[in-house]
């Protein structure tokens, strides 16, 4: 039986599942976040075997399965690899609130890195004004607002 009959009442019980977390960043992400927060620097990690530079920094290169320990300072500027304009109010799980649509969202490959970082783009959400290949620069939040979190990067600014 799959049809709901009109005269049958069904009760639906609302439950708010609220689970608090406190995530441990660990060795690699802690160093990344501290550099971001304190020095406005973005670090990647280099695989000793395939030599690719990865962001975020992590303990193992998934492709070579070797431990990574060479830190590489990345440029604050990079190239847009892919983008989208979000017309849908995605929920931000860290705040529980939706981002206001529309907003531009893109993948920027920072110079010196082999993988892009996804973030908000500070550019009018207009298809004709955003192109793959455009250059962007990291906009850090003011020092007093930074708290050791990816949101310490406010967004990427287009480079004129």
């Amino acid at each position, binding site marked *: 039986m799959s049809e709901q009959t009109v005269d049958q009442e069904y009760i639906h019980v609302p439950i708010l599942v609220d689970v608090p*977390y406190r995530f441990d960043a*660990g060795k690699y992400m802690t160093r990344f976040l501290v550099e971001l927060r304190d020095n406005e620097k973005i670090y990647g990690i280099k695989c000793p075997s395939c030599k690719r530079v990865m962001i975020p920094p992590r303990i193992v290169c998934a492709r070579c399965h070797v431990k990574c320990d060479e830190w590489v300072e990345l440029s604050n500027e990079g190239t847009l690899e892919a983008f989208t304009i979000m017309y849908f109010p995605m929920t931000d799980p860290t705040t529980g609130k939706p981002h206001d649509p529309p907003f531009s969202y893109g993948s920027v490959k920072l110079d010196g890195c082999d993988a892009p970082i996804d973030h908000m783009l500070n550019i009018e959400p207009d298809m004709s004004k955003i192109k793959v290949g455009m250059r962007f620069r990291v906009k850090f939040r003011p020092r007093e607002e930074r708290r050791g979190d990816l949101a310490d990067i406010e967004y990427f600014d287009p480079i004129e």
Partner: protein
Amino acid sequence: MTDRVAIVAAAKTGFSPSRSDANYSELAYEVIEKVLTETGLTIGDDIDNSISCSHDIWDGQTISNIGITDVIGGHLRNEEKMAMDGSTAVYYGTIAILSGEYNLTLLLAHTKMSQTNRNIVNNDAFEPIFSRKLGLDYTSAGALQATRYMHVHGIQRDQVAKVAVKNLGNASRNETAHNFGFYSVEDIIESPVLATPITQKEMAPDTDGAVAMILASEKAAKKITKNPVWVNGIGSSYDAHYLGDRDLAMSRALEQAAGRAYAMAGIKNPVKDVDVFEVGEEFAHQELMWYEGLGLCEAGKGGELIDSGRTLFEGDIPVNPSGGLLGGVPANVAGLHSVAEAFLQLRGEAGRRQVKDAGVAVVQGQSGHCGQHHCVVVLGRD
């Protein structure tokens, strides 16, 4: 059955109430690196399957195995996650190798209980409308189980506390345990009460850590080590969910799981045929119940068995020489830790907690409240 499966390596992180120095993939890699180094095996050339145990809600990560894909070698390879106790990784890993699909399987279990709230997580495991809204968690449900079990069989308060005395004492000989000490029955009973009759020293403490292991087909195992430990029997079973549907004074699911594992391993009399047991006692009273479910004594005689001293480290049926879960082992990791301990016992590598001439070991792990799901693994030197 002619084909067999062996454990060829096992490693565990140090366990502690909080490993805030490492995220869970870093914890996982600590133990993965150890088992690979010890065996000389590599992800690229040797390991052809991996199985992990964790829960999204514990990790706060949707599809929690995403976080260990890189370190377990899952990139462009197979990995499957059991959202259950770690013992089920050995259970399913054995099945997968017996299927003929794989030769060498890397197992991993990891949890950082410090990152969230155990009572909320456990409450979310209850059916949402009839049970969850009462605020039940594993501790309150476990307390109902303890009271019922003690009432039905006339189990005495001190008999339950003796499990904690034994296990916390045993844990002092286990270098990875963090909850240990030599206590009296009074110390246990007088520790802060969580939900009567369960006191703080009778509950497995919040713990962070990980365990890794390598399972091998018979052919592969013999090439890797002269000292493999064989998985000779496996069994599992579910009990009912609603507490009202269960006979809380016994564990039908454990009897079934143990029966299946014993039949496969050819164990007729576990008291005589098995040299050492590692069981998953989230609460002290459960160890007495698991004695009964595993056939170490008759129903209701768990209290007498602990009184007899036979399950002490130096007894003839040693149970939890590692200190068990009370010694401090993370949820989900628990069963894989128990298997790792049994592995060390059978290899004669258990150090100060080594049981004499251990040839056959039985491990039991549980998932869900009051042991709703049980998994039993029989291990042997031969």
